[in-house]
């Protein structure tokens, strides 16, 4: 594994300002966009609202400003609507206060866009989604929850003037089912994530990509719903660990190793769910970032964020060939694509060649810096907001 000389970073959510501060943040620019998300979190909210606002607010001058608001802020919906020129509703289900906010904007002649990062706007795919997530299908509350959630998302989308999403594949699905104009603003890394990634990358380069101890595979999960995705790669992991006594596995988050790996428990490192800043340290430490997904229309809509977050710290990814993985990974050049029967050989291909590893890591890092950093997103963002 790689040494990570960057110490653990103190972490606090950077978006926890009080409402007056966030309203004031909105007022700084000539063109103002309000992002709405039900509750702040480190996944969808961070990528689709916080990061977007950061890009706009970081531009020199006072052309643009952006802020974000939550359900609890809707007591001040009039203030939000008065101050913003545009509302982007991020992945939020229909509810009375949100619809009043949307109505308010639209009565003021201000456009409202719906931002969504998963295929959760079409109930025809609900069964597939529940199956993909491995949920308990015998529990009727599962069906109530997911059908209800998706129908509510769709109802919100239907009330909006257009949609923003993370990739062309999902954009096509949204347009197909809702008929809304849909534009793409990809997910990307924000300033804080880039800062720690750059330190980790620099340290790795300075050490000449030197490794010590076990070679580590890594699987990083932010939710417990990826067990079936992870299972796609586990047989290959078991075979590799059998063949390579110096191979280990790091599991971060909610994934548990299956019985096939029981023999290798002493080589498995399990780490708890980690904040998105310090997660980069764990990702940087492993040789191979595993990105298995079941391949279907739901996972084809997933963005390749695990790829570029690993690439930013010089870690090579091996990924299932979903639509967006194929779109960003050039097999053998900046990562590896592994079909269902190829996981073992593709991971082996990464581990077997230190020279090839460094070349792939550098290519992937360049790609991450050029295409997936917050500094290169303004054009797409302005276009999506109708400001260009």
């Amino acid at each position, binding site marked *: 594994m790689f040494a990570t000389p960057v110490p653990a970073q103190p972490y606090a959510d950077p978006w926890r300002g009080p409402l007056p501060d966030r309203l004031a943040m909105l007022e700084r620019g000539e063109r103002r966009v309000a992002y709405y998300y039900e*509750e702040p979190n480190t996944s969808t909210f961070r990528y689709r609202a916080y990061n977007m606002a950061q890009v706009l607010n970081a531009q020199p001058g006072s052309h643009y400003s952006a802020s974000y608001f939550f359900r609890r802020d809707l007591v001040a919906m009039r203030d939000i609507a008065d101050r913003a020129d545009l509302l982007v509703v991020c992945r939020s289900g229909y509810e009375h206060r949100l619809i009043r906010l949307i109505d308010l904007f639209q009565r003021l002649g201000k456009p409202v866009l719906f931002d969504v990062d998963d295929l959760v706007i079409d109930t*025809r*795919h609900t*069964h*597939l989604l529940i*199956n993909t*997530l*491995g*949920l*308990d*299908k*015998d*529990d009727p*509350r*599962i069906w*109530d*929850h997911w059908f209800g*959630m998706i129908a509510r998302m769709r109802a919100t989308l239907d009330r909006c003037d257009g949609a923003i999403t993370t990739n062309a*594949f999902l954009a*096509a699905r949204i347009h197909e089912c809702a008929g809304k104009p849909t534009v793409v603003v990809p997910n990307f890394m924000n300033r804080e994530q880039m800062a720690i990634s750059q330190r980790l990358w620099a340290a790795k380069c300075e050490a000449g990509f030197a490794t010590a101890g076990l070679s580590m595979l890594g699987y990083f999960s932010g939710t*417990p*719903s990826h*067990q*079936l995705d992870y*299972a796609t790669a586990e*047989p*290959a992991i078991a*075979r590799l660990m059998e063949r390579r006594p110096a191979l280990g596995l790091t599991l971060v988050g*909610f*994934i*548990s*190793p*299956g*019985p096939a790996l*029981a023999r290798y428990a002493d080589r498995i490192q*399990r780490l*708890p*769910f980690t904040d998105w800043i310090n997660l980069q340290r764990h990702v940087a430490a492993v040789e191979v970032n595993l990105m298995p997904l*079941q*391949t*279907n*229309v739901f996972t*084809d809509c997933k963005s390749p964020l695990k790829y570029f977050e690993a690439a930013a710290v010089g870690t090579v990814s091996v990924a*299932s*060939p979903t*639509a967006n993985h194929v779109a960003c990974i050039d097999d053998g050049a900046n990562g590896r694509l592994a*079909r*269902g*029967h*190829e*996981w*073992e*050989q593709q991971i082996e291909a990464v581990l077997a060649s230190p020279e090839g590893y460094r070349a792939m890591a550098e290519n992937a890092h360049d790609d991450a810096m050029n295409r997936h950093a917050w500094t290169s997103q303004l054009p797409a963002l302005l276009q999506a907001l109708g400001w260009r």
Partner: protein
Amino acid sequence: MAGAAEAAHCAEGACAAGRIIELQVARPARLPTSCTLPSRVIQQLARLHAFQRQFGWRATGSKLWRMARHRLAAAGQAQWQAAPGLHTSPDWASPFPAPQAAHGGRVAPRFFLVPRSSRRRVTLLCERLEARRLCDASRTALALAVVTANRLQADLRLIATQQAPDPGALNALLRSQGLALNGECILAGPLPAHTGIEFDRLDGELMLAASCACATDCLNEVPAADLVCLLHADDSAVLEAAQAGASPLLQRTDLRWVVCSGSLQQQLASRGFTAVAQQALSFEPAFPLAAGEPVSLEARRHLLLQLTGPADRERVAIALAALESALADGVLGPQPWDIVFAGAELPQVALADGRRPLRIDDLEVPAAWQRLRTVDVVLALPLPGVPLLAPWLRSATGAVVVACTGSATTSADNPAERVIHCALERSAIVQALRRASECIGHDVRPLHQQASAGVDGVGSAAGDWSHALSATASSLAAGR
């Protein structure tokens, strides 16, 4: 919510280094299905949920936790198991019985329909992927599925209901067969009884059943129009139908059939299966043995005893007795011979001279196919009334085939075919082996080279699945 946090806190105390030591929770966490909880709480609840599933509890309230303590005390330190997810509150009890195994202990796959998307897919349904056997139906079905998927620019999903598909074996098999899949490969299985595993099915997705049993399993789940059933002489249900002339499945007119070999189709037609006779597609199988590594030229000869269908004692005993006699009497010539068995049901035996024949089924896939390439004589034991695979065996291996078809000896009309029929009698088999030995003695070229040169007119197509399946795959792909 406080209850959830409390339960999680207690559970955390009970968990150390991934093992349960003690659980001291008075009542379960009652959660709404959707709620926002700290990630640590969710993680601990996921573990509780997994533990509940592991021990198969279906209880509510404090009873659950009494059972928990009891079970934990009995189990000592129990290993946590993976949870499929946490979106069920722990007190849910399903009113539905667990899925039962289908007839014969098989678990039929369950499907649900999803809208057609930009991604196309061909699904192959088999009980297990058997990589080593020369004439295995699942191997043939895999070839058909790969060629068809490539034709459709589709992904391939392989569902093996009884044994997890081994990616390594699949890779080796594809290589040995000269097959390359262009799209994604999705592996699924096995399907344990008492699980609710379901598979999505795209509207209009081609579902290829490798056997009659798999097709039967799917008929309640898949529209007949989307289901294609492979009929192969390796399938016991097909053998039974070919012999008895009765099969409810093969009499159906709403299914699509693909028959491995025109002679099997003719056989089934002669038994009155008119739908198979009139509507089925058929192809001749390929044996692309040359796709493997080069064969070293050896002085030793190799005889393959190949069994089709169940290993009934009498049939095998006669063949073994004939083989021992031939070896003892030097009927096969002066060279040393290695004996290889192919047929999952052939027993492990020691021959009279003490040698233990090598079983193809015990070898790793590359070694098995390497071994098959060196065969000089095939002693084939087909079931009576079932078409012989000898021409393809002959074509693939270059071997001379002695086929115990049960009929009187009918030395091949065309000597170039080098298929020698004989009755299933000891003396007849010995005599046929003598002729086989004479036959191979006339040709000084290594036999596998004769095969690759296409000496018998079955030709080079016999080594290429893409060629052999081209027309069939085109027909299956049409309109999809």
